[in-house]
């Protein structure tokens, strides 16, 4: 189900497709509702209703605290304060998230392609290996990167020896480390949708291109790549959204000056006790991401997303 499809279906409730769903008889007519309602209620209560609370919180008087309680004063200025105070981390979130998504695509596409077309009977094993590293805790993996990128570590010393890094050049606690961590941590979100869409491609189409004297590169550019676009779109979205909202990598691998919007929101909720500004920032982040997703999906013009 694509975002675009969802949006268009919201406007026009589609006619049920009789071929897709059999007409239920008698008592079975309500089975669908019985099955769907418990889960829908859960999502309604704990996903949709909280957004209402978040909007309400974002308009409270910022002078309150959790302990004294908040007053609803329709404080729209919370939004302007939140944005003007934090436009830098907000921008960094989108830049770091975007860079990580780009590198994930760069690393993930060859991997997904190799699994889909070149792995043969090792396909299943390779798929397991793609997910396997991500069964270790996200935080522990990120802490490992601290060690890999450490000042006295192998990577830094090699780069210094090659004079790519200067004498006192470092990797840890730089934006580079943050993007490296984000790229690493969200790679499977790129590889799996890419693989799913490459796997669906009819091999005869690629053979046909080669029969018609297309070179492998031309065949790839004209047949395989366009047919894998749904996977590229799904993968970039599934990578970008969590990467832009993440604060773990920025906290563990960056300096405070590399902080992303997640760090700010987390800080406001945590020690800062500044719930209204945190809520306003969360909603700004969500709105920006939604706008980007809609524009992106429109431009990519793809139908299948999830």
């Amino acid at each position, binding site marked *: 189900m694509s975002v675009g499809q969802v949006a268009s279906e919201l406007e026009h409730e*589609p006619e049920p497709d009789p071929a897709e769903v059999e007409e239920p008889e008698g008592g079975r007519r309500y089975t669908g509702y019985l099955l769907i309602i418990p889960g829908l209620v859960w999502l309604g209560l*704990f*996903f949709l209703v909280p957004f209402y609370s*978040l909007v309400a919180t974002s308009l409270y008087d910022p002078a309150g605290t959790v302990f004294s309680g908040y007053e609803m004063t329709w404080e729209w200025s919370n939004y302007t304060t939140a944005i003007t105070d934090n436009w830098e981390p907000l921008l960094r979130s989108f830049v770091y998230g975007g860079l990580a998504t780009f590198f994930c695509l760069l690393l993930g596409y060859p991997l997904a392609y190799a699994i889909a077309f070149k792995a043969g009977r090792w396909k299943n094993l390779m798929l397991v290996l793609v997910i396997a590293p991500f*069964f270790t*805790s996200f935080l522990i993996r990120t802490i490992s990167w601290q060690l*890999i990128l450490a000042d006295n570590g192998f990577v830094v010393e090699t780069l210094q020896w090659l004079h790519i890094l200067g004498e006192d050049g470092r990797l840890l606690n730089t934006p580079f480390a943050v993007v490296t961590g984000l790229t690493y941590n969200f790679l499977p979100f790129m590889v799996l949708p890419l693989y799913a869409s490459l796997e669906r491609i009819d091999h005869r189409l690629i053979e046909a291109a080669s029969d018609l004297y297309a070179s492998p590169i031309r065949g790839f550019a004209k047949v395989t790549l366009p047919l894998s676009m749904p996977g590229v779109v799904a993968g970039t979205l599934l990578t970008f959204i969590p990467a832009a*909202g993440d604060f773990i990598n920025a906290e563990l691998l960056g300096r405070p000056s590399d902080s992303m919007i997640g760090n700010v929101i987390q800080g406001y909720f945590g020690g800062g006790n500044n719930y209204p500004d945190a809520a306003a920032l969360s909603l700004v982040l969500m709105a920006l991401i939604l706008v980007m997703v809609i524009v992106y999906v429109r431009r990519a013009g793809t139908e299948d997303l999830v």
Partner: protein
Amino acid sequence: MSTISRPGRWVSDHLILIIGLLVLAYTFVPIAVVVLMSFNAPEARLTYQFDGFTWHNWANPCEPEGMCDAVVVSIEIGLLATLGATILGTLMAFALVRHRFTGRSTTNLVIFLPMATPEIVMGSSLLALFVGTGFSGDLGFWTILIAHIMFCLSFVVVTVKARLAGLDSRLEQAAMDLYANEWQTFWRVTFPLVFPGILGAALLAFSLSFDDFIITNLNAGNEVTFPMFVWGSAQRDIPMQINVIGTAMFLISVLIVLAASLRGRRGARAVA
């Protein structure tokens, strides 16, 4: 006939596989670090580097104060969240693929949205709900569980739905033709065929729940889950035992996934 020569073709064919394998190897580098550090005997408390080999961490996994309690809390929440999300999500997947009801597109949107929402936004909106309704003093195990069922649910629906949609409906028709009633058809044919999908969804839900930090941290009150323990220790000094837990998690999940995929392959052969 190809426009490039055979050796050229061989290189280009294998080049992509080699790049793929290199990327795969790269994803295992931090895992190697985790395994290595689980055998580390640190000399200074604040430097995170390999100083020497020891069995100590594996022999005394629960030595860091509060760590094993946190692991137990995470396992409890993980199991309950998996149970809740798998049941609710499987029912939803069946409704979406097999039944007719109005509001299908809205339902699809509501299922899709949690996957397209950054965790920090979901976490803060839930916190706003709990605080706004006067539950700020009750944040803890149950609020974490509520949150985990919520964010695991969509992933379960998508996974089970994919399996159900890929199911050959002729197998069910065959069962009906052979005079099985609906109930028998469901339990003898449909359910066993969908089961690998449900199992996969449950594994995914457990690992999402066990590993979650951002949403959990906002809604945990005084409860400490394993990722929260790791986060807390990363601010001070990191006990090497977290790497023991990390290595164990890795080994256990790889074993489960391998066993499941072997079983799945045998099952697929039996059906075919």
